[in-house]
């Protein structure tokens, strides 16, 4: 269990950090309560309705698709850096990976998940 001492240290630091910051700001800041300060923050504009609103599941779909393609670049980047060492093997593996993504993309497209009416 000796190897885990740094992790314990990290946990302690992570706990101590917000505690210190909160106490410090509590001691230093001026305390002027104001009704406006309790409002929901929305880019500085006064909010007009409740924040809990139903919105289309399409946003969710688009977000998931964005995530998929975003993560794809995370995989592509280390491959690009190690391209010379991995040579043909890396190209084949990456080709398989990209083809799978392509098929997934074709599937959601043909299912009409990308149409926005």
């Amino acid at each position, binding site marked *: 269990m000796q190897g885990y001492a740094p992790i314990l240290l990290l946990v302690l630091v992570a706990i101590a950090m917000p505690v210190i910051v909160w106490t410090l700001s509590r001691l230093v800041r001026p305390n002027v309560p104001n009704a406006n300060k309790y409002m929901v923050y929305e880019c500085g504009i006064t909010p007009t309705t409740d924040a809990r609103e139903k919105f289309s599941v399409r946003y969710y779909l688009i977000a998931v698709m964005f995530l998929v393609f975003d993560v794809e670049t995370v995989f592509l980047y280390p491959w690009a850096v190690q391209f010379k*060492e*991995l*040579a*043909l*093997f*890396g190209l*084949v593996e990456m080709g398989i990976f990209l083809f*799978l993504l392509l*098929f*997934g993309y*074709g*599937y959601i497209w*043909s*299912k009409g998940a990308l149409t926005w009416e």
Partner: protein
Amino acid sequence: MNGFASGLMEALLRDSAFILPQLFLAGLGTLMLWPGDLLFHKGEKHKWAPVTGAILIVVLALVFRTPEGTGFSGMYRVDGLTKGFQILSILGALGAVALSQRLLNALKEQTVEYYALILFSLSGMLFLCGAVDFVSFYFSLELMAICIYILVAYLRKQERGVEAGLKYFLLGAFSSGLLLYGISLLFAATGGKTTNFAEMGQLLPVVSQSNTLLVGAGVLMVLVGLGFKVAAVPFHMWSPDAYEGAPTPITAFMATAPKAASLAAFIRVFQTALPGVADQWMLPLGYVAAASMILGNVAAIKQQSMKRLLAYSSIAHVGYMLLGVMCGPEGAQATWLYMATYLVMNFGAFAIVIHLQGTGEGERIEDFRGLKDRHPFLAFAMMVFLLSLAGIPPLVGFFGKFYLFQMAVTQGHITLVTIAFLTSVVSAFYYLGVVNQMYFKDAPALAEGAEPEATGMATTVIVTVACVLVLLGTGFAKPLLEWAGGIGSEKKASQVALR
């Protein structure tokens, strides 16, 4: 090209022969979704069923032709155990596709996704049968399970299907977490050196002497996680609900194919990775097996729904099969044999339930009243399957049980075999209850002008084949046993691989 990459490339080309069936399944499944889906228009999707059937038969042939050996840096292994259980999984999928047709056509729920999901989950099962490393084991287990979560909730307009799917998903995800935690503890116990089953099998007995708690906790968590997957008591709570809510063909699928693959994994994990620490898991596994037999059979007695009855009976049968897991390498073939006979009886019984369900009955046990007058053949076949499930000689179910119990006795599990024997007698009570309904109770009066519906082709074929196999299967016992003998040789092979 440098040495490192060309070595990897060579290994990839060489080893891909081992996973050819899975590559074929997953590749064609992907192609089916796109662009294959554009091939058949709406209302023609039922044409995917014969395509899927053909794919499954080709995969069955490919499995027979796969060379034996270990590949992918000791992640995947093909041997008798792998092939034997892979064949059972493929047969289960084939049966499920055949039985699905009527229900899906009647509900107008034919989609390409249904078949693609079966193919994907099957490729997970095939991987699981041959996984000899905790990493590949976990990945294939999840591939299998996630596809089945979706299939359980496939009829998404029916509330109880969605409920069953959600329940199954939540408990399945929870058990996966436990399993993964157990694996990580075992990995830590080996000093973070290996996740390979065979290497762990050598390291763990040494480590467990100084680090008993870590190894013990890891082993127990792996046992609990796997127990959830095969629905053994006390980790069975999801199974009756999931079985009842799922579309009935999927229930038949769940009771056979994933169970076969999970049992293969069970045998692999406990006989290759953890045999050296048997004192840690033998007793808990014995309790789990005994509890499954007792609770499965006792709870089945008061069930009103046929699907729930079969669900509890499958819990009990898992208890018997865990007995085989405890018996070492020789137990593997007994387990395989039991699973093979269970697959046949179970599909026969489910084929009949599905047929009756199509006419609006079959869900409740009362619906079987007077079946002998309406469908004499179906009633006879159902009686054969139920008696075989109860293990009455000379049916094939008796043969499977006899062989398994005999194996367990020679291994010294006398108490467990006694419990197994007594609970088999209990099980005869509720199986015979259904037979009683079919033969000695009067049928409810048919509505004016209603004719008992003729059996479809898929049902007739499956019921006939299963019935013949159950009746005459014991005659084929000897060649089957000899063939199954190759399944138990796994231990020798793994030692060769280590050298």
